[in-house]
């Protein structure tokens, strides 16, 4: 299995990946807490972007409502923790299960009725919106009043209950990001990956070849939803308060997918690169605005929009593919 995953990966790419991992592993020891909090955001977006990429990049199903899975995952684990005192390591499974069920439900309805493309994307937005308003009126999680997790003192880290300092969350996120990366590589190099490729590129041809298109699309949705839910659990325990208005909002879904699109859809490293570029861009921009004393609300976002526009116009496949070429990391067939 390992040899399969390493197949065709140039030596240089392996070395660079190893180097990156090493840098990320020692980063918390050398950077200040502010940079650490930015790195946490980078990893969070890299992870959720990777999860989204399974559905869009691998299987070709555009979801614009992934905040649904983040939110459901976050709320499930957080509510179980606040109501019953059951820690997140047990709650995670509930989160994943509920999220996968949501994904399967949406997928079942859509794919059964032959809904695809733009219509599917709108259906995902619609479900996320529906859930947002629903959670606003869900008394068990305190509706729009917000769910607050009890915050104990941070004197010591308690990994069993995911309570502790940011550095603990950093390593937790790093671990799931690495695992997601490996898992996706494993998926892509296996039979499933080839089926997805066929479905993404030529759905009709895939069908005639005897691939059960419905089943493999459902599988993509389920995997993507489950992975995203795990990101949601992290979100809940890192921020310790959840509001439906924020976690299910459409802008959350969009935030989440910008990374992989800018980085490069369908590639494994694209979501990671995209998350890094976008987060650093956003932070760097506000830094510059402050330094220049040019503090007009909106200016930063306009510049951000222009950057996005330029990338999408001039680098249609994202930043990673051309960069990969430049670095000489093209995988050999």
């Amino acid at each position, binding site marked *: 299995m390992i040899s399969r995953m390493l197949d065709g990966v140039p030596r240089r790419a392996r070395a660079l990946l190893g180097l990156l991992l090493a*840098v990320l592993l*020692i*980063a918390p*020891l*050398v*950077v*200040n*807490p*502010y*940079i*650490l*909090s*930015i*790195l946490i*955001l980078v990893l969070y977006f890299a992870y959720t972007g990777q999860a989204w990429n399974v559905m869009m990049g691998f299987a070709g199903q555009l979801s614009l409502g992934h905040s649904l899975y983040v939110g459901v995952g976050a709320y499930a684990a957080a509510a179980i923790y606040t109501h019953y005192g059951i820690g997140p390591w047990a709650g995670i499974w509930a989160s994943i299960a509920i999220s996968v069920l949501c994904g399967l439900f949406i997928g079942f309805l859509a794919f059964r009725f032959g809904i695809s493309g733009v219509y599917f994307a709108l259906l995902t937005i619609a479900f996320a919106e529906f859930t947002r*308003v629903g959670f*606003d*009126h869900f008394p068990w999680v*305190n*509706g*729009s*009043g*917000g769910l*607050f997790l*009890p*915050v*104990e*003192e*941070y004197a010591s880290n308690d990994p069993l209950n995911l309570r502790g*300092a*940011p550095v603990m969350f950093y390593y937790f996120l790093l671990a799931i990001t690495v695992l997601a990366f490996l898992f996706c590589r494993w998926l892509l190099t296996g039979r499933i990956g080839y089926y997805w490729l066929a479905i993404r590129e030529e759905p009709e041809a895939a069908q005639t070849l005897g691939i059960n298109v419905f089943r493999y699309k459902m599988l993509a949705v389920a995997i993507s939803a489950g992975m995203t839910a795990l990101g949601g659990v992290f979100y809940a325990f890192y*921020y*310790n*308060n959840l*509001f439906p*208005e*924020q976690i299910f909002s459409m802008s959350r879904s969009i935030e989440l997918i910008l990374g992989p699109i800018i980085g490069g859809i369908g590639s494994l490293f694209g979501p990671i690169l995209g998350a890094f570029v976008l987060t*650093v*861009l956003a*932070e*760097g*921009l*506000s*830094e*510059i605005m402050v*330094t*220049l004393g040019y*503090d007009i*609300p*909106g200016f*930063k*976002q306009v*510049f951000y929009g222009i950057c996005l526009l330029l990338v999408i116009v001039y680098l249609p496949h994202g930043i990673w593919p051309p960069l990969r070429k430049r670095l000489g990391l093209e995988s050999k067939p």
Partner: protein
Amino acid sequence: MTVKLTRRQFAAGTAASAALLAGTAPFNIVRAQGKKLKIGVLLPRSGFEAQLGIACQRGIDITQKMLPAFGLPGDFEIMNADTESNVDVARSRAEKLVNEGAHVLIGAFDSGQSAAIAQVAEQKGVPYVINIAAAPQITEQGYKYVFRNFPTAPMLVRNGLVLMKSVFEKSGITPKTVVFMHVNDTFGQAMQKGISAMLPSLDMPFKVVETIAYDPQAKDLSVEVAKAKATGAEMLMPVTRINDAILLVREMVKQRWEPKIVMSPGAPGFYENQFYRTLGKFSNYMITNVPWYNPRSAVTQKVLDEFTKKYKNEMFELNVGFSFEAVMIAVDAFARAKSTDGKALADALRSTNIKEHVIAGGPITFDAKGQNPNIISVTLQNLDQRPKVVLPLDIAEDNLALPLPSWSKR
């Protein structure tokens, strides 16, 4: 030219971040003793709460000049950060301010953002003074570094409801039926919970015949108002934000609904500049029971003078007042602690006792949870298209005018 400069600087910034990642950044948080106090201010100056964050900022911006007038040191530094009305950004900005040496944090107008900042403050041992945020949970977490000089939603509700009785007594109009309309967001739901919990115990003379919750993103309240009007209630008790407050009154005029009293138990909307600007004469006679600046306080008068001089077209209201006080509290604690150490500052904050200040009520003190319990509400009525204190009588600026006159006779 500007663009070029920006890009170069941006490249430099990116390179710097990359360098930091590579590990060249020194790991140190300078917390020297007895230096100039650095105050990190976090406010939503862009995003959907921008109007309010900017109003708060004005209260912060006049402190540097004003505080020495009250015998407090003036050589403190304000470090501003924009939370962009977003919880993630609030949290990373708080980390950033602490990292750049902020000794105290102030902010953040919104409960979600304040809760996120509170965690950073607690972790880093940096005191945090909340200017505005009503969710009671924030001071129920056992935090040692978090202080709130703003009433919690239950406090707001209790003060607001008690004042209602005084209003009924003073005006001689006691409604038997009330319709309660509230925006269904974090603040609105906290208020709604407070009201339904407290109504039975407070022995109010009225009955709430209908509760109508509406979406914070509502662009149109025609159905809600039609429903409220159909109840025939004598009083409307709204919990709004600013935009929906305007929608609400406009729709009431259109549908010719004229309850005897419109009285908010303690929510924004009616007393804001935009309300008067947009609705003109229809803004009059609305009542809000809310914490407010004490027009009789000498401190308020001085601050008010400075504010009107600096911001000619803006209104001095509670956002400005509470933000001003937050800085005042921090600087006062620093003056007593004579240190910028987090623990020393927090201890000094705990023993805060400021008698002369801006907002109406007792002295500013903090209980064991870090909550100021001495903030009262006053009854504000819109008269001559501006908010005037009408109750309690000892600080009143004008007389209560009820019932609401007909829309068509204005």
